[in-house]
């Protein structure tokens, strides 16, 4: 009786969702994997099976590997800076200071601006505002546009991404801090824990669930960065800031090597899935109940 009812419930509640999930995620994914073994160009009516030739093309595509390396570098910087910054700001914003809500909203705002718009705004800042500051003050740092130098353009990308992502993470950390039990904090203080010890031994373990989410979100977002990359630098100067996702798109649609692009996308997916999976597994193990 019970199991029968369960089946009906399952059909009623889970099936529509499952169907949508299959239709828009699983099926296209499998189809995408299938496409990596064909020479399809996106529009042709025939698809020829070519085996692993596309993956051979990926191996030969030096630009892809360098863009992947750059993406790793970018991810490391963004994930660390965003989380440290967001954690610190969230900590400050839950200590009962004046105008907390105003600051929370303020920090969150950049996250509401779409990546493309944000990229253009910052492009203006880096290549016009900074340059005119440099012109009027003579500061070497702002003399030329940051976006015309490979290193500075990369820094610019990190700065903008941090600015955009932190707000969202602050929100999650703020929620985490507000969920901390006053009793536990008080008990810790009475036991003589203060400052750094309290942070390390009490707050951090209790905040682990927020950290898991934030790390996961920043990792996957940073790996898949495309919009900011496109509108801020578009790979400039001379292709030195082209991240993996953008390279995949360029390969498929500009170079019109659909199969190779699709294979690169698959490789990128596997890398991101593995790294995020390991991260979630590791941080989940650290989580404790109050």
């Amino acid at each position, binding site marked *: 009786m019970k199991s029968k009812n369960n089946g009906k419930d399952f059909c009623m509640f889970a099936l529509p969702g499952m169907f949508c999930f299959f239709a828009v995620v699983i099926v296209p994914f499998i189809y995408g994997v299938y496409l990596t073994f064909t020479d399809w160009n996106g529009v042709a009516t025939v698809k020829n099976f070519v085996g692993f030739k596309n993956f051979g093309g990926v191996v030969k595509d030096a630009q892809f590997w360098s863009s992947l390396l750059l993406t790793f570098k970018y991810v490391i910087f963004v994930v660390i800076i965003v989380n440290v910054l967001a954690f610190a700001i969230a900590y400050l914003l839950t200590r009962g200071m004046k105008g907390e809500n105003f600051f929370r909203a303020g920090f969150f705002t950049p996250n509401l601006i779409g990546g493309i718009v944000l990229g253009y705004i910052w492009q203006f800042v880096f290549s016009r505002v900074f340059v005119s500051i440099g012109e009027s003050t003579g500061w070497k740092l702002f003399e030329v546009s940051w976006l015309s130098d490979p290193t500075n353009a990369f820094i610019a990308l990190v700065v903008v991404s941090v600015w955009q992502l932190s707000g969202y993470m602050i929100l999650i950390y703020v929620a985490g801090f507000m969920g901390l039990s006053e009793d536990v904090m008080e008990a810790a203080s009475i036991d003589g824990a203060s400052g750094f010890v309290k942070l390390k031994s009490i707050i951090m373990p209790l905040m682990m669930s927020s950290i898991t989410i934030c790390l996961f979100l920043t990792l996957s977002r940073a790996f898949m960065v495309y919009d900011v990359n496109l509108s801020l630098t578009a790979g400039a100067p001379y292709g030195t800031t082209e991240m993996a996702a953008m390279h995949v798109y*360029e390969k498929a649609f*500009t170079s019109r090597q659909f199969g190779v692009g699709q294979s690169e996308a698959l490789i990128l997916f596997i890398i991101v899935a593995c790294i995020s999976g390991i991260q979630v597994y590791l941080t989940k193990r650290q989580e404790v109940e109050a």
Partner: protein
Amino acid sequence: MRKKVMARLVSVVLIMVLMMTMLTGCRFGFASDPDDPNAEEKKEPIDTSTDTFEYDASLNGTNITLLNTKAEIQVALEEMGVEYEKKSGVHVEVMPVSDDSPYTKMISLYNSGNPPTIAILDTTDVIALAEEKGVDMSEEKWVSEAEGYLTKINGKIYSFPLCIEGRGIIYNKTVIEKALGETFDPASITTLDEFQAFLDRLVENGIEKPVSMAKEDWSLGAHHLQYIYETYDGTSEGAQKVVEEIKAGTLDLNTYNRMSEFLDIFDVLKEYNVAKGDPLGADYDEMAIDLADGKTAFWFNGNWAWPNLVEAGAEETDEYGFLPYFMNNDKEDFANQMIQGAPSKQVMVDRQIATEKEQAAGRQFLNWIVFSEIGQQMLVKTCNIIPPFQNNPYEPSDPLSRDIYEKVHAQKAFSASVIVPNDHWAVLGAAMQKYLAGRSDRRELMESIQDYWDEQE
């Protein structure tokens, strides 16, 4: 307490969301959009009183779609569609492509089973798609009027050349004359040395950095670099021959004349570049302003730059024109006498999904553009296009297009269109940017070009 805080937080966030959506709805004023479809300003009246075109009555009531990838003529094309419908009874729906590349848009439309009847594409797109999907138009009536501007794929014509676009070194005559205090005759400069001496004179007379150069990869990778193919002998066949030889490894770029000559003029432009201190930080919109205001006297670009110049304050009565891309000091060399003016934007008619009737209506529309008095006028006056058709008697009105039009008719333009892979401008544009920024030398640039061609199958 916490509930109250949350409620306040939510309300603040909601207000921010609302404000941001309002703000993002506004246009940001600092970057003018060269493809702004609303840029069309004043229109010349179209005389619709005479029309000798013969319409096929059986097509009355047919609906066709037109994919437009030339955003600046969106409004004009819609108007053409309305006029065509009035006369022929065929309804033309014009679909714009704004964000995607034409090819990406075509891919998605074909995959959704809903491709346009007619599509305005780039030449490389036509080559990729035509044999499988395009109507063979080799026997069309308009073919005879577009001699010299046709693209053939295995001997067949699948596409209709929509316009001629030309490029070279744009000059602002008024600015030059004001600086030098004498009349300027563009024909007086015939070689690279003379051009450089002229630049020096401008510098002496107060225009410190007289040249603007776009840093965009399409400008560097396609419009600059392709001179090495196009100036081989000024024909499309010659250009293709160079490409084949570089690919096959039989032509060494290190000893190829046009390669070093190209770099010679490129170096001159680079030297007098207004953004010499930070060439990759150059801003496209600012270049138009600089040229119109007289901070610079030259801008390497094409007639598509006119809307930008208009936004920068230029008017149709101003005197702008093109100088050739001076490759060397030989006065007899055609490259020093002519500018490049080649067909761009090819129109293809679908045969895979479109019905016979729709195909016929689409083909009739193309012939209407070429042969009906209304179509001829609208192509030039409404779309502001330089027509590649010999029978079209109308002249474009803006100074850049007019200069190209006059040069085409005075045999002062060569039409060599080279067919290169679609990522040529992007990949080699990056290599050219590196050279422009002074971060690579001639040898490295040539190696990049050779490497690129070696990778092609």
